[in-house]
């Protein structure tokens, strides 16, 4: 219960900062203006009137979509680093948890690169900057899996995930994707446990978000594994168990063989039933788009409550979604495919 009284002592400044930053997230009318643009130059003009200000005017490189993408990611990175630098426990642990998902991607990339004997120096710039850890360069030195695990990965914050999910023996047999998904499952479950332990408003806000994430991954892994070599038993090892589908839904999903059966599983849960039922209307929204929408909705709910850690997580996720939206609009504009330009997910 110290959460209520003592929260502002440690985290009040940062919560205020995040709420201020949240006010700068683009609104529907901003997106509408951006979608009307015909060139990237117009978009740059519109972005100058938002909180992004001189994002694109600084420097004199050519204005391309990839430049825009890099600059947007750079802003998220700076904001996150600023928050992390000023934070105290338990917020600092919470923010570290957020970085673990990027770390997992980086580790998988480096491991596959090292196993194919590629130069680590080439891969380092391609890692996600939010997921850097100290031993990254050292991953390239390891020559066998055993070395990799015992010497390097053990010291990273990801070690507990490796222990649960992956043993030394089967590191080499697994493909990169399977390893990534197993690590992510362990990560989600650990994060969920952490939030549950915090209690109070943090638990009330974060746990539904993480449950949704877990279920969403289970659904999407199932749907995407139809027609591939991934069998039901293999799939089950990838389903995170911290969602609402656990345990019965996950069992049913592992046995599902086509889209109809997956939909039948979703029927038992009213939220998911809604998501699955809309995809058959012939609208241009795919299943994934609907999941994105639901995620954004849950994240916006975080700002309605105070004195909890969820605002930080939601802010980062929403900022990322905004970056994706802007890049999508930019791509549509440059490729002159205005028909699908409204496929972005509006946030506020």
């Amino acid at each position, binding site marked *: 219960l110290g959460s209520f009284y003592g929260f502002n002592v440690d985290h009040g400044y940062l919560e205020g900062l995040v709420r201020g930053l949240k006010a700068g997230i683009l609104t529907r009318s901003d997106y509408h203006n951006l979608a009307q643009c015909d060139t990237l130059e117009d978009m740059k003009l519109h972005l100058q009137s938002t909180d992004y200000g001189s994002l694109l005017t600084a420097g004199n490189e050519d204005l391309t979509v990839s430049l825009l993408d890099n600059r947007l990611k750079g802003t998220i990175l700076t904001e996150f680093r600023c928050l992390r630098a000023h934070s105290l426990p338990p917020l600092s642990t919470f923010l570290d948890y957020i970085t673990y998902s990027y770390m997992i991607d980086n580790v998988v990339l480096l491991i*596959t690169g090292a196993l194919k004997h590629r130069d680590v120096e080439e891969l380092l710039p391609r890692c996600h900057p939010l997921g850097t850890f100290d031993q990254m360069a050292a991953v390239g030195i390891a020559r066998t899996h055993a070395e990799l695990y015992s010497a390097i990965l053990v010291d990273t914050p990801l070690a507990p995930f490796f222990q649960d999910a992956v043993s030394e023996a089967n590191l080499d047999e697994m493909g990169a994707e399977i390893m990534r998904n197993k690590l992510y499952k362990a990560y989600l479950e650990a994060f969920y446990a952490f939030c549950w332990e915090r209690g109070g408003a943090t638990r009330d806000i974060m746990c539904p978000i993480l449950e949704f994430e877990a279920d969403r*991954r289970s659904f999407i892994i199932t749907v995407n594994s139809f027609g591939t070599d991934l069998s039901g038993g293999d799939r089950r090892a990838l389903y995170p168990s911290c969602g609402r589908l656990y345990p019965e839904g996950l069992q049913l999903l592992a046995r599902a063989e086509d889209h109809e059966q997956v939909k039948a599983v979703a029927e038992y849960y009213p939220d998911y039933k809604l998501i699955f039922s809309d995809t058959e209307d012939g609208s241009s929204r795919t299943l994934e788009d609907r999941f994105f929408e639901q995620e954004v909705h849950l994240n916006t709910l975080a700002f309605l409550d105070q004195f909890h850690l969820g605002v930080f997580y939601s802010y980062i996720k929403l900022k990322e979604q905004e970056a994706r939206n802007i890049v999508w609009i930019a791509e549509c504009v440059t490729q002159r495919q205005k028909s699908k330009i409204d496929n972005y997910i509006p946030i506020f």
Partner: protein
Amino acid sequence: MSGKERIDIFPSRMAQTIMKARLKGAQTGRNLLKKKADALSMRFRQILRKIIETKTLMGEVMREAAFSLAEAKFAAGDFSTTVIQNVNKAQVKVRAKKDNVAGVTLPVFEHYQEGGDSYELTGLARGGEQVSRLKRNYAKAVELLVELASLQTSFVTLDQAIKITNRRVNAIEHVIIPRIERTLSYIITELDEREREEFYRLKKIQEKKKQMRERTEKEIAARQALLGPIAEPSNMLTEETDEDLLFE
């Protein structure tokens, strides 16, 4: 241009026959080459039409493929590094075969799949549908590109072959055949002239002989006149009386 040349050859009847045969050969060759050039041109025009069709289709397909890449990036995040890391062998390969058109070999490329899809699980947790759509679109683009490559190489090869053939046809028509014809007419004129010379010579000899005969006759007549009447030796056969007969 070598306008007034003819082949240097001694003009004779045999040479004339040889030249006639060569003329015939040159004309047949020219007709055959013309037929080859026509066949090649026909194929050339077909290929040109196909290229235009394929290129416009290519524009559409590439545009769609690039857009599906943007969609996949929106749904699945940045998977480019994962894809690059997992590259080991090519899945789609190209074979070259030969096609023959009127004696000209044209290369034809066809693509074939080898090995399974090593990117089956990319985007497993996010954006898998967009990634598989992306793969399909780019596979279509690659097929079109291979076809376009065959068409373009055939185009270039055929173009060269047509130029060479036409050059040969023109060379035969405007250089070889006139040269042979000129040689032939030269031979014929030489032969005619030789005949005329022969004829003239004969005539001249006859005249000379006649003149000589007249001259000798005149001389005899003159000599006879000088000698007076010459008793002709008696002709035994025309004698009426024979002296040697004692008793008559």
